[in-house]
């Protein structure tokens, strides 16, 4: 199985005009509308598109694993030349055992929680006919192959004792165990931290080089596809609208949807004051809608009469690049749907709205103290956006919740709002303080009460935060809805009836109901599709310009933070590692941890930088490393000084602070090149588990076992 297989060999996967429909309430609703693509042996093919466009349905159809109400209505699917739809149940089962593997988004769900990792991986070999001891040996080899440093130890563990990244490695090991003809990866890194994602993607790339496996890579993330795939198909409303070599499609898109999608991303260092993000107007067509002509016609800025009259054919652009658009030549002239001009940031003049000094937050767990936020001193100016970045577990959300008073900071922490100390818990804060600080949560489904109408949600916020009543409240409610561009006609809908973007607008409106001074945005767009994300980011920028509100913007998406933030704070293990203007932090030199974070982001524009990988897991809060807390993973590790002395937060240039023993000049010089791999002798061994098992104290135990 190599790339140079003879031309007569059938392609690893061949979909021909596949139509899949789901039966919902007695009606067959098409989800895939004639999807055709071919993956050559050894090739890596990406399927990209927004949620609801049929990516996962395609994957399930390929392994004949559609839900009971789904059916392939038309077309053919051939795996290595064999017609899948004509196979018997038993033949399909054998195919799943031997030839096709699938890796899902949530590795925790893909592993059996009651079987040890070793036995689970060995099972794959046992099913293929290996003896028990042979299966164990091969399982160990397989785990070593996915770069698990101590396979013997991991094999004795259960799934919940491994971190997300480690779990996904195990799942990949199981998927590759049978040396599959075709490996389907369905959003394999979506739930993972950027640093872990980078590691898993590197692993998949390395394994592909080694084993020559054919890969179908499904993702909503254009950057990930760009990094991982040879060719890409852009899926929209169940149809492939553009297809071709990755570089060609991303650098020279020829379908208005691809063009729009790429413009939605904040890329190449664009910032809010220079350019507004473009959006794609309208919504994905409803499931099962009748779409006789071009599927994108309703949202396309180039659409003409012919587009709603006739389904465009694929236009060949050479080199396998094809576009399904009547006006493929003009695709890149697609008019912007949002004005291009950036929004001038209101000049803040440095007047602080929020100031924290020596802010701590300690949790007590099983008699152990866990310091989730450690001695953080920050200032947030009026009308300013402070980006808060770091891996999960770095204390971003804890910091925000302490500011808001949901989980109050420790005694002795100074937390000031406009120069006055804020009471810790929200219940002790006065009305003015309560309305001054609000939040937009990550997941609007959880943040909006699903039993309340939009009207009731907003009316309650106005009543409680502003004391509005009667007519006045109705007027303000309409103004509020208008200010977040929420259609007042939908005001009596329940959240479930709204799309993700609309729900997030409601959540934003609620946060702005009391005319707050500071709004915490906790990953407000990470549950949304890119086109919706762009619209929400534009809205946040506009609201800030109008109202002069300050944002504390938490995100793991560095491109988004760079677009929005004026200053950036980088947290690691509850400590402030670096703080400075957005361009300063993103420009060189930066703290080694920031350097590693930046380096882990895949880039659709193919910009190459020195690659740094952080190995191992974030150390436990209960037992932080000595000296500099980052020394166990630091790519610019110096030596004993890092292990023994905790560096202080020092100002290395005006307004730019970091916590590192290196001098700014030393790091500037170093960061011109990638660091050497750390000497394995000196580097502390990367921990195999999320937490060392003994002592189990750090593991919160559900109380009251009855």
């Amino acid at each position: 199985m190599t790339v140079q297989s003879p031309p007569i060999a059938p392609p690893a996967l061949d979909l021909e005009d596949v139509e899949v429909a789901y039966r919902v309430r007695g009606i067959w609703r098409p989800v895939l509308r004639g999807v055709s693509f071919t993956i050559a042996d050894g090739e890596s093919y990406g399927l990209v598109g927004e949620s609801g466009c049929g990516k996962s349905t395609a994957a399930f159809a390929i392994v004949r694993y559609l839900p009971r109400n789904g059916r392939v209505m038309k077309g053919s699917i051939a795996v290595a030349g064999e017609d899948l739809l004509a196979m018997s149940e038993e033949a399909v089962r054998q195919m799943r055992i031997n030839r096709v593997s699938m890796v899902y988004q949530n590795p925790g769900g893909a592993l059996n929680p009651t079987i040890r990792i070793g036995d689970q991986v060995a099972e794959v070999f046992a099913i293929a006919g290996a003896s028990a001891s042979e299966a164990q040996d091969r399982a160990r080899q397989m785990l070593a192959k996915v770069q698990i440093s101590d396979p013997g130890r991991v094999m004795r563990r259960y799934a919940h004792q491994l971190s997300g990244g480690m779990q996904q490695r195990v799942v990949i090991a199981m998927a590759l165990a049978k040396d599959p003809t075709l490996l389907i990866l369905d959003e394999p890194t979506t739930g993972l931290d950027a640093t872990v994602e980078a590691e898993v993607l590197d692993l998949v790339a390395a394994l592909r080089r080694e084993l020559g496996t054919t890969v179908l890579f499904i993702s909503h993330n254009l950057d990930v596809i760009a990094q991982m795939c040879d060719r890409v198909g852009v899926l929209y409303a169940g149809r492939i609208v553009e297809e071709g070599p990755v570089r060609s499609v991303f650098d020279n898109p020829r379908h208005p949807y691809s063009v729009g999608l790429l413009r939605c991303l904040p890329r190449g260092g664009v910032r809010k004051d220079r350019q507004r993000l473009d959006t794609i107007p309208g919504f994905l067509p409803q499931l099962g809608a009748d779409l006789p002509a071009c599927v994108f016609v309703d949202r396309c800025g180039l659409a003409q009469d012919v587009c709603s009259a006739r389904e465009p054919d694929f236009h060949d652009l050479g080199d396998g690049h094809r576009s399904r658009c009547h006006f493929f030549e003009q695709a890149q002239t697609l008019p912007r749907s949002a004005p291009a001009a950036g929004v001038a940031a209101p000049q803040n003049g440095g007047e602080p709205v929020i100031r924290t000094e020596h802010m701590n937050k300690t949790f007590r767990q099983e008699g152990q103290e866990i310091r989730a936020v450690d001695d953080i001193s920050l200032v947030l100016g009026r009308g300013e956006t402070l980006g808060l970045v770091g891996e999960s577990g770095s204390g971003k959300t804890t910091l925000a919740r302490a500011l808001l008073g949901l989980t109050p900071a420790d005694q002795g922490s100074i937390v000031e709002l406009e120069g006055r100390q804020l009471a810790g818990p929200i219940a002790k804060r006065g009305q003015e303080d309560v309305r001054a600080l609000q939040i937009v949560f990550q997941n609007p489904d959880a943040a909006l009460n699903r039993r309340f109408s939009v009207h009731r949600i907003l009316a309650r916020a106005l009543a409680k935060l502003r004391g509005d009543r009667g007519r006045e409240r109705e007027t303000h409610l309409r103004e509020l809805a208008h200010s977040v561009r929420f259609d007042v006609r939908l005001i009596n809908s329940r959240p479930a009836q709204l799309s993700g973007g609309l729900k997030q607008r409601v959540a934003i409106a609620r946060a702005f109901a009391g005319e707050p001074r500071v709004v915490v945005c906790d990953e407000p767009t990470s549950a949304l599709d890119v086109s919706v994300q762009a619209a929400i980011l534009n809205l946040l920028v506009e609201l800030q310009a109008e109202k002069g509100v300050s944002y504390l913007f938490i995100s793991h998406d560095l491109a988004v933070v760079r677009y929005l933030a004026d200053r950036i704070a980088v947290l690691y293990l509850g400590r402030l590692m670096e703080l400075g203007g957005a361009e300063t932090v993103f420009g060189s030199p930066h703290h080694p941890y920031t350097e590693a974070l930046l380096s882990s982001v895949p880039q659709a524009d193919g910009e190459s930088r020195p690659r740094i990988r952080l190995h191992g897991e974030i150390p436990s809060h209960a037992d932080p490393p000595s000296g500099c807390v980052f020394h166990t993973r630091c790519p610019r590790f110096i030596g004993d000084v890092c292990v023994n002395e905790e560096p202080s937060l020092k100002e290395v240039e005006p307004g730019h602070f970091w916590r590192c023993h290196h001098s700014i000049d030393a790091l500037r010089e170093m960061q011109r090149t990638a660091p050497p791999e750390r000497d394995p002798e000196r580097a502390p061994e990367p921990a195999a588990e999320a937490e060392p098992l003994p002592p189990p104290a750090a593991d919160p135990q559900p109380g009251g076992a009855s």
Partner: protein
Amino acid sequence: MSAGAPPPSLSPSAGGDLAVAVPPPSVDDARLASRERWRLLWHSKTFIAGVVIVGFWILCAIFGKAIAPKDPFAADPLNSLVSPGSAYWFGTDRLGRDVFSRVIVGARDILIVAPLATLLGTVLGTALGLITGYFRGAVDDVLSRIIDAFLAVPVVIIALLAIVALGPSKVALIIVIGVVFAPIIARTVRAAVLSERELEYVSAARLRNERTPYILFAEILPNVMGPVLVEFTVRLGYAVFTVATLSFLGFGIQPPAPDWGLQVFEHFGLISGGYWWPVLFPAAAIASLVIGVNLLADGLTQAFER
């Protein structure tokens, strides 16, 4: 090539991940969802059977006197213990009263006591469950241990003790059964609240400085009504049975009421003499009502837990 389970990389997660493939709800779909739930309910044979049985007994409870062919209280010593036949469909009891009429009219007491007791238990239990689930910590620990202690003792024993103390009356019966059921319902509600309180709409309410009762009863309660409703119907079945049991033991509804449990109690000694009808028909009535209520509960559970 052993033919065992499908490959592990596919099978274990399939259940969870299939949801991904199910198309996301659109504006229309969401509005249809609750209508769909009721449509489903009315297409469920289980639920319909329950409605028919329970509906029949409710009609008997309301119009009992009008339906009954004879006066259920009229003693006729000359015609005592007549076997079922055309004159007396279900025969007569030891005082010569018509068993059929007594079974029909007997539906009233049990259908007043059992639902009211269940309602009381559900209201108390829901409030308790909301409080223990929301506060957790010390409040939860103390209340939950009390609930556990309560649950450790058989319901009938506690009820018996309480009735002895309060004296048998319908009100006492309602209060006792309600209080005894509350901890059981509280447990179910608490479990639902535990997951609900972690959702951010609760944080959002706290950030408006809402009072705790508002958060509990206006924000969280509507979201746990599904389990509460299911629990209500399940407990109703038990309540019917508990009322009948207490009456049978002489601590429930008092003579000369035509209560089913009481009728069984008054006549079960006569079974050995071959007089089975004054026992069998009231017992069958109890059984049918319990089954009917449980069918309703099953139907609701299926519709709400999908």
